């Protein structure tokens, strides 16, 4: 790359460089800032709530008639249930769509289809939630003979739809990144198209595919509006896909508005935010790591 050519630089150059450096510093500052801020706020929550009750307790009821309880167990279960459902729906669908796009479709079809699928990423989640309320939840209720369609299944599928373009897009990038030589060599040796895909292309791209799924998972865990509108919002731990669930994101969005600044409830919501931040950080870190591992 370019070596810095030594020049006698005027003051303006130094100032500009310094300004740019501060701006870049800002981004790192922001990330650290968000984390620190969540962390410090959560610490204050733990003055009143014991960490063991928080992490291991199963009942979240900060405004209880009797004693307030602060266990995130049912909230975590809600997040887990909806996320797993969404991933099970979106990952296979996204992967196969990506395979179609990169290996099977004609170039013209691909040029049209790829931006179209990316368009799904642009659907605001409140729109998906609205359509869930108006059409999808009644459909689920009718199909499974439930009295109400607002449950983990409905939320899971809609959240999966929201994450689908991310998974498909990154998988497609990973698959296209595999050099043509491998495919050509495989076909030349007599393998069928599908055998080539299965035994040559997919293994070569498996790091990128895993990264795609991780990125999708990150998007899924952080989804707020859809679960707020269609997951049913019940504080009981969800017993099945057909139970209502209340994931962490929905809890924060619902309860933050009623908390008085500086109260335990206020700080406990930041503790929830911290958990969310750590979860998504972990998932994104793994995805990052996978992308940068050298693939074949």
């Amino acid at each position, binding site marked *: 790359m370019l070596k810095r050519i030594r020049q006698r630089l005027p003051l303006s150059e130094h100032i500009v460089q310094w300004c740019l450096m501060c701006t870049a510093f800002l981004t790192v500052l922001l990330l650290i800032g968000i984390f620190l801020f969540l962390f410090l706020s959560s610490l204050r929550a733990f003055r009143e709530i014991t960490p063991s009750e928080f992490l291991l307790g199963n009942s979240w009821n900060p405004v209880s008639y009797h004693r307030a309880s602060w266990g995130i167990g049912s909230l975590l279960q809600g997040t887990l249930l909806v996320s797993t459902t969404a991933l099970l729906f979106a990952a296979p669908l996204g992967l196969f769509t990506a395979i179609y796009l990169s290996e099977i479709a004609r170039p013209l079809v691909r040029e049209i289809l790829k931006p179209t699928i990316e368009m799904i990423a642009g659907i605001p989640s409140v729109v998906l939630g609205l359509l869930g309320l108006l059409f999808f939840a009644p459909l689920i209720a009718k199909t499974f003979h439930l009295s109400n369609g607002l449950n983990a299944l409905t939320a899971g599928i809609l959240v999966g739809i929201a994450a689908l373009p991310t998974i498909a897009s990154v998988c497609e990038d990973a698959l296209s990144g595999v050099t043509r030589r491998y495919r050509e060599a495989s076909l030349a040796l007599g393998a069928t198209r599908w055998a080539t895909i299965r035994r040559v292309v997919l293994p070569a791209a498996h790091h990128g595919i895993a990264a795609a799924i991780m990125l999708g998972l990150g998007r899924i865990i952080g989804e707020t509006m859809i679960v707020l509108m269609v997951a049913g919002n019940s504080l009981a731990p969800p017993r099945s896909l057909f139970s209502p669930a209340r994931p962490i994101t929905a809890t924060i969005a*619902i309860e933050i508005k009623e908390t008085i600044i500086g109260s335990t409830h206020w700080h406990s919501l930041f503790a929830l935010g911290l958990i969310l931040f750590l979860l998504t950080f972990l998932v994104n870190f793994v995805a990052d790591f996978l992308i940068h591992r050298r693939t074949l």
Partner: protein
Amino acid sequence: MSMPSRFALLPLPLLLLTACNRGTSNTTNLTIKGSDTEVQLVSNLAKAFARHNTSAHLSVTGGGSATGIASLLNGEIDIANSSRPMSDAERAQASERGIDLQEFILARDGLSIILHPENPITTLSMQQLSDIYSGRATRWKDIGGSDAPIVLYGRQSTSGTFGFFRDTVVKDDYAQTMRNMEGNQAIVDAVRADANGIGYVGVGYVKDDQGNVRDGISAILISLKNSNPVSPLDREAVKRGDYPISRPIYQYLPAVPPRGSPAEAFLRFEASSDGQAIVEASGFYAITAEDVQRNSTLLAKIH
């Protein structure tokens, strides 16, 4: 002009926006926030008020009574809408922060219990309601209906209706299986679609413009232990206090409003016959003579 310079023009529209600022940083002089039960009512009142007082600028937001109260205590708003009275703990917080809480009653509500039209039950006692919502009764046959599970719909903890119902009717924690819906309309929609559902909503969400029950739901009569069951749609019963779960609808202010302030004008408008007509048209009941009496103590303090 080289290309980068052109993009320096981008911030212009935003500067234009700020240039319209009249000098004071916040031109809204009445910020109202709180109860979702009240938000449409107060928005209607605000709109009518603004028509006569064109210099007044109001903003109304929902989020739940607890949201409004929290914002009031945080010093962010002028009036908090609350469909439940403030608790002792909240009043203590207010005096800790040096806030001189003022209470104003702007309407009356008959909190209604709604069922699906196919549900044969038409009356319930307060004790039965408490059993249902605390989870002690889990199937409809426990209270004389069919053998089907009871599906509970309620509000979220931000809601004053949530708090009021719990403290007045359930007198215990809600069953964990209760689904916390975002607003009154969400409960109505849910019960409409669920033959086994039960929900509680403000009477404004039960009545249509003519005062009849809306399609798709049935409002049941409530009885106290030994009295006759009373319907929430019976205006006189609600006003007399015969309906067991009728309640005043409140607004809270952080101090006595100064004479001539927008807050004072708005309160007087709400209590006026024009304001109360809007209250009735929005689906609530007008304030009783006692409520007027209580309000007059506040209005008398204004100087």
